[in-house]
Every structure is written in C-alpha cells, then in structure tokens.
C-alpha cells in the first residue's frame, strides 16, 4: 500500500471490524453487500479456512476481486463454490446448527436487536414499505451466533422497531426463548463508531468498545435509545494497512456491494 492511500472510510472501518469477528475453520452465513465483503476479507486474512455460505444455495463461496455478487443468487457468488444446492436446503442446514455465524445488514435495529426491513409506520397502511426479510429472519433465528453490521445513524438505531421482521431479543429478558426461538444468539452489532453486545439479563444493547477517535457521546448521540455502557470500553484496533489494501482489492471497481436481503 502506498503512503498516499486514502484513510479508512466509515464503510471500511465497519467491514474490517466485522471481519475480525470470524474465527478460522468456521462457517458463516452472510447477506450480500457489506456482510459478504466482511466475510470475504476474513477469508483473505485471519480465516483462510472460513466457509462462506450464501442463501442462493451456495456453500464455500469464493469472492473474486472486482466481480462481487450483486445479489445472493447469481453466478458471481457461485463461481468456485464447493457445493450448490437450493435455497430451502441452505436454511435447513442453518436450522440443523451447521452455521457458526450469521452476518446481516439492517435498515432499522432496536435496543433489543430486533430488525425491521419490512414496514415503517402502520402495518396495515405503511408509510414506507421496505423490501422485506429476504433471508434475515431465518439467519437470525437459525444461525448459531448472528452479528449485525450497519452504519451508525440515528434513523437506524430506534428504541422499538415499528415491525419486528427479524427477531433479536424481542422485548428483552427471556422473551426470545419464550417465543420458541431457543436457537440462535445475537452476538452483537458492529458499526463505524462502535461494537455493541447485549446485556445477559435485560438483553438490552450495550456499548462494549469504541472505534478509534470516537467518544461515548458520539455514539449515544447517534443512537435513538438509551444505550447501556460497559464498565470498560476498549478502543478497537484501526484497520491495518494490510487489511485496507486487501479490502480495497476485493471490492475493486466492480464491487457494488449491493444486493438482496
């Protein structure tokens, strides 16, 4: 990487932080866009034996620099894979417990980690009809440990989502378990400002670490509800030059990072 390489963008900070969560020799179910790029980065860095699963029915996806898939169901995601099957089958593998991690982006997340990608406003007369769950409800219900990766914006971090598309800890406490969702933990939320997890008892979102140069106030100001704050708040390592270089090479010019679900 040359000395003139631009500093890390918010997106790059998120992707790098998220990628570090993935341990080697594990299996991650990644939504396209940022989550998939983060998984791809992990594969190129500390987790060369990571198996990336995509909902199109693709197991062991390889990401080709500059030709990242735009959706979860396309040849760009299938090329070089170890196994191709169907969509239902992928989620049944998740239900069985084969997938260590789920990696999701969100439109809206609340203090209990519930995700809304369906409806803003009234469910019978929505103000905004969003695209829908795609695989997110299944991923957060069925993968062993799910992480959310998203930009830290007040409109995304709301006290209670209008509509629980994909269940986090529902209304907190034991409500997730009581709903029958005995599978799947919500591991945390990675943003460009911080890493948050969930308090063991209340299941409320809790600030656990800060991105470099970010203050607690920066985070709480951009969070639409009262965030619990851990006693100790380590500062996350900034993206290393090697991580940034690898990320940029992966995304390339063709890396739109968009897609479904």
């Amino acid at each position, binding site marked *: 990487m040359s000395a003139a390489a631009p500093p890390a963008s918010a997106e790059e900070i998120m992707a790098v932080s998220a990628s570090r969560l993935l341990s080697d020799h594990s299996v991650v179910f990644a939504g396209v866009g940022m989550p998939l790029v983060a998984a791809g980065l992990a594969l190129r860095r500390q987790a060369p034996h990571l198996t990336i699963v995509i909902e199109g029915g693709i197991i062991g996806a390889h990401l080709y620099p500059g030709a990242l898939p735009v959706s979860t169901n*396309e040849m760009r995601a299938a090329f070089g894979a170890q196994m191709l099957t169907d969509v239902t089958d992928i989620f049944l593998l998740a239900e069985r417990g084969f997938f260590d991690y789920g990696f999701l982006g969100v439109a809206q997340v609340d203090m209990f980690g519930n995700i809304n990608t369906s409806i803003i406003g009234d469910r019978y007369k929505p103000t905004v009809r969003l695209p829908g769950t795609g695989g997110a*409800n299944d991923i957060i219900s069925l993968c062993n440990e799910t992480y959310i990766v998203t930009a830290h914006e007040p409109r995304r971090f709301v006290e209670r989502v209008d509509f629980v598309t994909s269940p986090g800890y529902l209304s907190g406490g034991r409500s997730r378990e009581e709903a029958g969702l005995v599978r799947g933990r919500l591991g945390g939320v990675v943003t460009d400002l911080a890493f948050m997890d969930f308090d063991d008892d209340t299941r409320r979102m809790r600030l656990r670490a800060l991105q470099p140069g970010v203050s607690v106030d920066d985070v709480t100001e951009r969070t639409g509800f009262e965030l619990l704050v851990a006693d100790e708040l380590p500062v996350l390592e900034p993206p290393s030059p090697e991580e940034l270089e690898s990320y940029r090479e992966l995304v390339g010019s063709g890396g739109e990072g968009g897609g479904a679900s």
Partner: protein
Amino acid sequence: MIDPVRSLEARREQEATRREAVDKVTSESEAVALIADGDHVAIGGTCYSRTPMALLFALLRSRRRDLTVSRPLSSFEMELLLASGTASRLVTTWVGIGLKWGLPLVLRHYVENGLATYEEWSHLAIGLRYRAGAMGVPFLPGLSMLGSDLASAVGLKSVECPYTGERLAAYPALNPDVALVHAHRADKFGNAQVDGYFHMDVDMTRAARKVIVSAEQIVEPERIAAEPAQTIIPHFAVDAVVEVPYGAYPAECYGLYEADYGHFDDYVNEVRRAGADGARSYVERNAYGHEDFAGFLEAVGADRLASLGAAARQLVPAGATR
C-alpha cells in the same frame, strides 16, 4: 391470510389429473393460456436468477387480472405484474431489484396506497410451504418466523411435537394453480433439467396444479436419459413446454448468460422519472410491443446477449453446464 390446503382435496385433484406422456411443446402465448384470472401463479428462480421472463412477458400480454403471485425472492418482475394490473397480491420474502438499485418504488406505491397486498414470509417458511404442497401434507414444522411480527401478520400457527412436547412453527402448504419455471433443457414430454442451483423450483413444480416449463433448448429424450440425475422436473408434473433461448433475460441463466445489470439501471431510471407509469411504459414497450419474446430479444440486440454469454463463460468452469 392463509388459505389452508386440505391435503385430501389436493390429493383427489392430483389423482384426477391426466399424466399423459405426449408432445407438450407449444408457444409462449398458448402456454400461458393455462392461467386464469384470479389464479395463484408461482414464479421459479429467485431474484434475477433463472426468472422465466419469456413466460412472464407472455403472461403480461395475455392481460390476465387479479393474480396472486408467489416467489421466494423477487425482482422487478413483481413491479411489472403490479403496474400492469396483472397481479394484486404478492406472497414472497423480498421485493426489490437488487440492493444496488435502492427501494422498489412501484412496490411502495402499490402497497403504501392499499392497491396491492404484500404477504411476507421468511425464506425457510415459503420454501417449506412449497415443500409441504409438494409432499401432499397440509403443513411442515420448523423454527423460523417465531416471535416475529411476520408470524402475527400472516396468522402463522404452531404445532406440538407428539414425542417431545416441543412447540414448532407450522408452515401451511402452498399449492399454486400454475408454476412457471425456466430450465436449461427439456424434452418434449416435459422432463426438465437445470444446471447449478435449483432455487425452489423442485418443490414449487410439484406443489403446483399445472406447470409450464420454458427451456433454453428442447432436446431429444435420449439426451435427458444420458444424464438422468440432472432431471429436476419429471414429465408427469408438466403441462406445457416452450423453447426460448435466452428465456430468462435480463435475469441470468447459470453457466449460459449473466444478468444484464444495465437493463435494470434503465428500468430503475425510468421508474425514478415516472413512477408506476415508468413500469407501465416498460411493459408497453418490451412486452406488449412485441409479438413474442424473440421480438423483444431482437430489440435488445444479439451483441448484448452475446456479451452476457461471454461473461457467464468466464465465471462458470467448463463442465459445470452441459
């Protein structure tokens, strides 16, 4: 919102269905004449992968009304069906064009104004709904959608395991009136083969009362018999077969051609300019404006199609398609 399927009735209907091994090759227009106003039509593929576009354009031309349309993951075809008045109820998990293209404006217009219903299920749930329909049982149990507002919005019920007492979500069977799927190859009887991922086509075609298959190529039965493990739809589930090379365009067909992202860019720009009218003019020009899909493809241009084919061959290793 759930229309329960009594498996006994579905079964009696299936028993009464003729399963003739006859030449079922026909035109796109003749094939979609199997669809009636108000029917539930399931669309194969997902998002912009192996979407049966030729059949959908023929459906648009047929001017059917008030369809319920189901699909695992939907792309711009849902907007075309809404804007043209063909469909008024969607049963799916996601509607967009692709995240790159932002929120689906035509969907928003129809749903936010109460002009259409969007019944939302999780992927596993809709997959197991088709599978229950395909298995001839009225429900299948699973662990998705529990606790979410998706469940309450559709009226999802639960079932108790008689052995362990555990409570599971019960996904009700879905038996579409007609399924439309695009395959890599089929014989004239309807035995159809697909390369790569199957999406939900296997279950969908078994669950449906009638099945229309478009194929890149109609082949001799001997070609099917040479690789029988590749067949995903048996002839006795199929009612009509149509040969349409590039029949999924602008969606991709695994190993044969990539999706045409530029085509989606143009569509989205048209909708951004003119809203649902943009989708309607797209339908006018591309579907109504040609007698058949071949006419549309001619307007797209052979060079453009060829470059999508070249892009696919770069991505998919030789040998993975037949």
